[in-house]
């Protein structure tokens, strides 16, 4: 991939993998709550979140700003300051409990078994150290090796992520790299210890589409080689369709829908997921007026009672007895398909989607 001569375009198409049924979870999150006490009150950033990811699979967590997708993933790596955040519930990675793990154990766990790729490579790489130094530091923290061996490893990793001329690049500083190359360098740093769990928090949001396509291919290739479990956080449903096996849709700190990618994007069951699909302009066909979700996401200081989505939901009148405003729905299978769950009181959501929502999708 470090070949710089333009050749015939490589064409790539992805085939969705088989179902996850029967595979053992590598990451298992159970009833996770993350709260931040502030001067204005208690911010309930994550409320009762549960999901699991087996090795070799990719879970996409989708949601808007303030939905709790980043906060919950930072908790998985123990990145919250315990003096500030109240975390309860359970997060198990490879059988080890992360909530309440000691700082010393966390240090050994982070960057070793589990690693993270951040959105903004500009601010996540240290400007004073060479790219090579930063990759070597991560490698030497977890492996008892000489500087020379670590540098060999750094060069090898840069080559692996498709950075041309890695022997020269390893001694350069982040500002000498372009945006796409910085993101590649950060992926090299995250993968230097062969992590079994990779959390990618909006890794392509700051990048241009052609570079984004390169990075998505790279993450997919590396996942196949390393056999890792990947949690991919994004707000871009197009990216999800290309890279994910399963999707978790989050709203106001909770999961509102969970299941295989083709089901959730093809025939979602939750009105919030419908609204998201209706907000994205299509790339083909005659442009149709968009049908956006009214209002804006709620403040996490005062999450609405009952279903947190009810103030913006156009289907709440179809549910009897004010359930939507008073009773918080459970995340359970809503149709005959047991492999997917949704948090909504609406009856027969599959029929409502097929007859009312599908015809007006852009």
């Amino acid at each position: 991939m470090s070949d710089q001569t333009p050749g015939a375009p490589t064409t790539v198409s992805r085939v969705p993998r088989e179902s996850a049924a029967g595979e053992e979870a590598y990451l298992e999150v159970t009833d996770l709550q993350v709260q931040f006490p502030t001067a204005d009150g208690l911010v309930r950033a994550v409320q009762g979140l549960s999901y699991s990811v087996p090795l070799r699979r990719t879970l996409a967590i989708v949601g808007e700003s303030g939905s709790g997708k980043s906060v919950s993933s930072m908790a998985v790596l123990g990145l919250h300051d315990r003096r500030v955040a109240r975390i309860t519930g359970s997060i198990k990675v490879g059988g080890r409990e992360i909530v309440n793990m000691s700082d010393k154990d966390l240090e050994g766990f982070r960057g070793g078994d589990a690693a993270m790729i951040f959105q903004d490579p500009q601010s996540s790489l240290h400007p004073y150290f060479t790219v090579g130094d930063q990759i070597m530091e991560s490698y030497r923290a977890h492996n008892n090796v000489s500087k020379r061996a670590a540098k060999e490893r750094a060069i090898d990793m840069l080559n692996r992520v498709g950075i041309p001329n890695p022997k020269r690049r390893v001694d350069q500083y982040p500002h000498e790299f372009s945006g796409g190359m910085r993101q590649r360098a950060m992926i090299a740093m995250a993968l230097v210890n062969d992590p079994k769990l990779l959390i990618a928090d909006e890794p392509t949001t700051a990048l241009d589409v052609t570079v984004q396509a390169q990075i998505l291919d790279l993450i997919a290739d590396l996942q196949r080689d390393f056999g890792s479990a990947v949690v991919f956080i994004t707000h871009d449903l197009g990216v999800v369709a290309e890279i994910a096996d399963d999707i978790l849709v989050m709203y106001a700190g909770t999961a509102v829908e969970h299941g295989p990618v083709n089901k959730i994007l093809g025939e979602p069951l939750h009105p919030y997921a419908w609204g998201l699909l209706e907000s994205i302009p299509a790339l083909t066909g005659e442009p149709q007026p968009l049908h956006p979700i009214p209002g804006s996401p709620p403040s996490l200081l005062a999450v609405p009672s009952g279903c947190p989505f009810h103030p913006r939901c156009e289907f709440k009148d179809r549910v009897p007895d004010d359930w939507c405003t008073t009773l918080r729905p459970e995340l359970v299978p809503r149709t005959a398909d047991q492999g997917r769950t949704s948090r909504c009181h609406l009856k027969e959501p599959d029929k409502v989607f097929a007859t009312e929502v599908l015809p007006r999708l852009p």
Partner: protein
Amino acid sequence: MTAATTPAKSGVRSVPGAPLLELENVKMHFKAKGEGLLARKTQWVQAVDGVDLTVQPGETLGLVGESGCGKSTTARLITRLLEPTAGQIRYQGVDIAHMSERKLRPYRREIQLIFQDPYSSLNPRHTVGTIVGTALRTHGMVAKSGELSRVQELLEVVGLNPEHYNRYPHEFSGGQRQRIGIARALAARPKIIVADEPVSALDVSIQAQVMNLLESLRKELGIAFVFIAHDLGVVRHFCDRIAVMYLGRVVEEGPRDSLYEKPQHPYTQALLSAVPDIGVVRGVPPKNRIRLVGDVPSPVDPPSGCRFRTRCWKAQDICATDDPALIERAPAQRVACHFAEPPAESILAETA
């Protein structure tokens, strides 16, 4: 030309029959210091290097391309926040490229700008009423007594509560702030609005709300738009005509449908094929993706001939020596490539 122009009361002259906006061979080269041994030698960043564009009244022109392609610089040139190093920017036939600030003022009223970042583009110390009302006062558009009611009218047009005129920007959400920015642009009753990534900073559901607002304004008020975005779906939704930029030049320009369905420039084809599409999961066969190699070259020292040749799979010797001109290859579709041709099969999967 002066003889043909008709002076208007507003101070804006116009040549009969001229398009609303016309850019001819516009260049913007920024001075940059060299590095190391070259420190004494002046280098020029060729941010925009010979752009031709035309916008008719009421039309929406989309400008797409990746970071560094010069689309935002073009926006700043049209609004004359920058003075071009070469070329003409004609507004209703009158060249405003080097016009003095005093003469330019009436034109500034008619050419408005909406910014990307709703957080940094509103003065935090001013109330919404002051922000929106400034244009009214600057251009003497309403009497002092009528200012408040006009501000409230504008807030209502963009879907904000008119009673909130005395609030400050921090009291509003991102989507609401972008609406304030739109109200500020509308206050001047512009004929053309340059919108530089107006929805990129917003969440998906809010983005769709703002898009619908812009669309209704365009239809009701007949304002022309130059709409800059990197999201190709958003641009397609909003624009009649689209120009694709690469490294300071327009490489392809055409009507929406022909550009998306039969792109002829290799860069346009690569760009369209790289857009992730959710159609894949609805049973649409996955499209073939063209993977571009390497990065965009530096605008300080762009490649000779065709600027895309270093990453192009069709490049031949002629591409390094002859700079391809932007010529019409299909009705109203202009392409700058020696080997322009529509793709063998559709790049974007057909929806059922």
